[in-house]
C-alpha cells in the first residue's frame, strides 16, 4: 500500500493542464495510492464473470483475453443499441466545459483527465473510431483513436476514479451524466475481467451470504445480539430484534456496513432502539440475514449484476410474507431502489402500498416499489408526535449534514433528514450553498472506491467535501458530520481525520436514538458511543 502524502503536500494542486501536449499524447502512470487492486479470480468465478484470473494493474501484463478488443467493441455496440442514454451521451457533448471543475476528483487532483468531459472523451474517442464516419476518416482530427491496450488501461484507470455521483450531470446543459457513462464503461471493462478487488469481492460475498462483507447468518445474529447488550448497558432495556421471522408486517433492509464497523454500528443501534420504541405502538418488523444488504456493489459492475443482487430483496419479502419493505440509511442503495429496483425485479404485486402502522400515513410515493426510506418513516413519526425526544442529549454536538450524492441527485431526499436532525438536536448548521443539497459533493469514495489501497485518491476526491466541513467547523465549531449513507459512515471518518481532525461522523438515526426517551429506561449517562452525555461528564456509571 502506498504511503499517503501529508495534507499540506496533497493540497498543492495545479488545475492547469499541459499547454502544448494534447490529451491523446499523454499516458497516465497507473499509480499506487490512486488505483485500486485488480479483481481476484475466485470472486469473478463465483458469480460467473468473464476472464477470471489474478492480475494487478501495476503490472505490465493485465492478462487480457486473446480477443479483448473485439469483445469490447461488440459490447460497445450492444450497449449503444440497448441504452439511448449511452448513444446520446456519446454524440451530443459540445465540450462547453461546464462540468470540468464540478468533479471532486478533478478539484482534488488537478488531473485533467478527471474532468468529467475528458473522462467521457476517453470513451468517446474509441466510439468515434469504431462507430462514426468522421472518426474513421479523420482519426485524431475528429477526436478518434484506436482502442489500444494503452487506451484501455487509461480508460480503466479513470473509470475507476469516478464515483458516479452525478454532480457533473446537474450542470450539463444536455444532462449528460458521467455516472451513466462510467456505468457503461465499467460494464465494458468487466467483459474482459477488469474489475477492482474492492468491488468484485463484495459482489461475490453478497451473492453468497447476502451481504457485501460476507457476514454469515449466525454472525449477523451475533452482531445484533452484541448491540442488544450494548444498548442494555446504556439504557437498561433489552431491545431484542427479530430475524428472518415469517409473517412480520415489515421487512427491514440496511447496508451491512451498519452492523460491521463504527460509526455505522451506532446507526444500527439507533434503528434497533427506534424499532423497540415503536413495538408497543404496533410496529411488527423483522430483519433478514438473507437480504442483509441494502447496498449493491453489483451496480458498480453491471446492470445485470445489480439486478442479480437486488433480486434478494423482493424474494425475501415474498418468502417472509411481509406487507412492505423499510430501507435503512444508504446512498447508492437508494438510487438503485428508486430508479432501478421495480424495473429490475418488479412488479412486487405480492406486497402492499406501505402504510405506517404507527401514524397511518400512506407512503404514496412508494406505491409500486413498496419500499420506504427510514428517514421518511421517522420524519413522519416526528411530524405526528409519536416520538418522545430530548434533543438536549445531543447538545454536545454541533451538527452539519452531508447530502449523499445518490439520495440527492438520484432521488431528491433533501428535507426529510434535515427535519429529523432539527428535531433531535439543537445545534444544526448548513455548509455553504454550492456544496449541499443537489449540489452536494461526494465523499470521494463512492461507487466501490472505498478501498484502502487508493487512500490518496480518496483524500483528494473528498477534499471539496472536507473543505466545506472545515468551513463550518471554523465558523460554527461544528464537530459532527451527519449523513444518511453507510459508505459515508465508513469513509468520512478517514476523510475528516485527514483534513478536519476534530469532526466526527454520524448517521442520523444514531442521533435519533440518543434523543429518544424510553419509558422505564435508566438514567442515561452516555450516548451510544459510550461518551458522556452533556452534563453527565462526572457520572461514574459507565
Amino acid at each position, binding site marked *: 500500500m502506498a504511503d499517503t502524502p501529508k495534507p499540506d503536500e496533497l493540497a498543492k*494542486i495545479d488545475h492547469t*493542464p499541459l*499547454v*502544448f*501536449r*494534447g490529451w491523446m499524447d499523454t499516458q497516465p502512470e497507473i499509480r499506487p495510492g490512486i488505483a485500486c487492486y485488480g479483481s481476484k479470480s475466485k470472486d469473478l468465478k463465483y458469480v460467473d464473470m468473464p476472464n477470471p484470473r489474478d492480475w494487478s494493474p501495476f503490472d505490465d501484463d493485465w492478462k487480457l483475453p486473446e480477443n479483448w478488443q473485439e469483445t469490447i467493441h461488440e459490447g460497445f455496440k450492444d450497449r449503444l*443499441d440497448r441504452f439511448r*442514454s449511452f*448513444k*446520446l451521451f456519446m454524440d*451530443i*457533448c*459540445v*465540450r462547453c*466545459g*461546464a462540468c470540468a*471543475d*464540478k468533479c471532486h476528483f478533478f478539484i482534488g487532483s488537478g488531473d*485533467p483527465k478527471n*474532468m468529467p468531459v*475528458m473522462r467521457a*472523451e476517453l470513451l468517446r474517442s474509441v466510439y468515434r473510431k469504431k462507430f462514426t*464516419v*468522421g472518426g474513421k476518416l479523420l482519426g485524431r*482530427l*475528429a*477526436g478518434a483513436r484506436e482502442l489500444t491496450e494503452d487506451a484501455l488501461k487509461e480508460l480503466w484507470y479513470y473509470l475507476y476514479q469516478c464515483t458516479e455521483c*452525478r454532480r457533473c450531470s446537474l450542470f450539463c*446543459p*444536455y*444532462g449528460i*451524466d458521467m455516472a451513466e457513462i462510467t456505468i457503461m464503461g465499467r460494464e465494458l471493462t468487466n467483459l474482459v475481467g477488469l474489475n477492482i478487488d474492492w468491488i468484485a469481492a463484495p459482489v461475490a460475498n453478497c451473492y*453468497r*451470504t447476502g451481504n457485501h462483507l460476507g457476514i*454469515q447468518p449466525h454472525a449477523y*445474529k451475533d452482531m445484533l445480539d452484541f448491540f442488544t447488550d450494548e444498548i442494555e448497558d446504556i439504557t437498561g432495556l433489552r431491545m431484542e430484534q427479530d430475524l428472518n421471522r415469517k409473517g412480520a408486517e415489515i421487512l427491514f433492509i440496511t447496508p451491512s456496513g451498519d452492523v460491521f464497523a463504527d460509526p455505522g454500528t451506532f446507526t444500527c443501534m439507533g434503528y434497533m432502539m427506534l424499532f423497540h420504541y415503536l413495538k408497543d405502538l404496533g410496529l411488527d418488523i423483522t430483519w433478514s*440475514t*438473507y437480504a442483509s444488504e441494502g447496498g449493491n456493489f453489483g451496480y458498480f459492475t453491471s*446492470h445485470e449484476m445489480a439486478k*442479480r443482487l437486488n433480486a434478494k430483496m423482493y*424474494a*425475501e419479502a415474498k418468502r417472509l410474507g411481509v406487507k412492505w419493505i423499510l430501507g435503512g440509511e444508504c446512498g447508492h442503495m437508494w438510487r438503485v431502489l*428508486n*430508479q432501478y429496483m*421495480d*424495473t*429490475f425485479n418488479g*412488479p412486487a404485486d405480492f406486497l402492499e402500498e406501505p402504510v405506517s402502522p404507527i401514524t397511518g400515513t400512506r407512503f404514496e*410515493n*412508494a*406505491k409500486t416499489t413498496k419500499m420506504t426510506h427510514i428517514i421518511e418513516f421517522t420524519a413522519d413519526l416526528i411530524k405526528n408526535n409519536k416520538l418522545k425526544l430530548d434533543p438536549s442529549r445531543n447538545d454536545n454536538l454541533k451538527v452539519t449534514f452531508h447530502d449523499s450524492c445518490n439520495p*440527492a*441527485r*438520484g432521488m*431528491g*431526499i433533501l428535507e426529510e433528514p434535515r427535519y429529523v436532525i432539527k428535531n433531535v438536536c439543537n445545534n444544526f448548521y448548513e455548509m455553504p450553498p454550492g*456544496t449541499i443539497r*443537489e*449540489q452536494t459533493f461526494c465523499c470521494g469514495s463512492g461507487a466501490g472506491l472505498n478501498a484502502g489501497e487508493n487512500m490518496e485518491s480518496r483524500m483528494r476526491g473528498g477534499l*471539496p467535501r472536507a473543505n466545506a466541513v472545515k468551513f463550518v467547523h471554523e465558523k460554527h465549531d461544528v464537530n459532527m458530520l451527519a449523513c444518511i449513507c453507510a459508505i459515508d459512515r465508513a469513509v468520512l471518518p478517514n476523510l475528516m481525520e485527514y483534513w478536519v481532525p476534530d469532526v466526527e461522523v454520524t448517521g442520523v438515526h444514531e442521533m435519533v436514538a440518543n434523543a429518544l426517551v424510553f419509558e422505564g429506561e435508566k438514567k442515561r449517562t452516555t450516548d451510544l458511543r459510550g461518551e458522556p452525555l452533556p452534563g453527565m461528564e462526572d457520572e461514574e456509571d459507565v
Partner: protein
Amino acid sequence: MNFIISILFSGFAVSTLILIPWVGVGAFDLRVLFGVIVPYAAMATFFIGIIVRVIDWGKSPVPFRIPTTAGQEWSFPWIKSNPIDNPRGTGGVIVRMILEVLLFRSLFRNTRLEYRNADSSPRIDYEWEKWLWLAALAFHWAFLVIFLRHFRFFMEPIPSFVHLLDNLDGFLQLGVLPFNGLGVPCVYISDLLMLAAVTYLFFRRLYIPQMRYISLPADYFPLFLILALGLTGVLMRYFLRVDITAVKELAIGLFKFSPTVPEGIGVIFYIHLFILSVLIAYFPFSKLMHFAGVFLSPTRNLSNNNRFVRHVNPWDYPVQTHTYDEYEDEFRERMIEVGLPVEKEIEPKEEPKEEPKEEEKE
C-alpha cells in the same frame, strides 16, 4: 495533437471553404453549382441526416428511468417539493424541458472553481460564473432572430413577424460608424450579439486552460464556420452591398423549387450561401446535433416517479440469482445453532456433527 494544430486545422478548413465559392463563382462563374446544386444538396443532407440521426437515437430504448433530480422529491404534503427540478409527472417534465431548451437552466447553475492554497491550507470557493450561460444564450437567441429575419428574403410578401423583428432588432437606429447617416442600414442588435458571443466562445476555449485542453477541431471548426457566416453576412449588409432583389429572386426560386440564377449578385453572397450550406450539411454529423439530442436526454425528460409508477425495460431478461434455498442449504446448521428460523429442519437432530452429509442428500 494540441490546441494549435486544432485551431490551424479548423482555420485552414474554413479558409478553404471560403475560397471554393470565391474561385468557383468569381473565376469560373459556376453560379448554378453554388447557387442551386450545393444549397439543395446541403438541405437534403441536413433534413435527411437529422431524421436519420434522431430515428437512430430513438431506436435505442430507455431501459431505466434515470432523471437527475435537482430538488426535493414529492413525499409528504407538509414537505415542499420542487415540481420542476424533481418532476413528479409530465407537467413538471414539460416545464423543466422548456426551461432547459429555452433558457439553458442547467448551464445557469454554472460556477467557477477558485482554488487557493495559502499556508498549506486549501480553501475552495465556487465563484459566480454566468458568462458561459450568457454567451450561449445570446448566441443561440441571436442566431434564431437572424434566421427569422432572413425570411424577408424567402417570402413575398414579407410576413409581418419579420417586420416586427426588424424593428425590434434595429431599434438602436445606429448606422455603422463612421458612416452614420450615409445610407448604411441601421445595425441589428442580433448581429452584434451573435458575433460577440461567438468570439467570446472562441476566446474562452483559448484562454481557459481546461477548455484549451478539451477542445477538438470539431469545436473550433463550427465556431469558425459560424463566425465566417456572420461576417460575410455583415459585410454584405453594411459594406459590400449586393443586389438584394436578385438575391431574393434566387432565394424564392430555391424555396419554390423553380430555381433561377439571376445575374449580378456579388461573389460575397455565394460565399455566404456556401458557408451556410456547409454548416447545415455538417450539422447531422457533428456535435451540433445537441439541439435535437437535448429533447431526448433521459436525465432531463423523465419524471422521478419510479417508486410509484412502474417503468418497464423492453429488453429485460431473467438473470441467475442465489436463491434463499441455496443460501439456507449452505448455512442451515449454523442458523439452527443460533436459533434462526429455517425452512427445512435437519433430520437427525441429536447428532449435529454428522448433519452436513445428511443435508446434502435432501
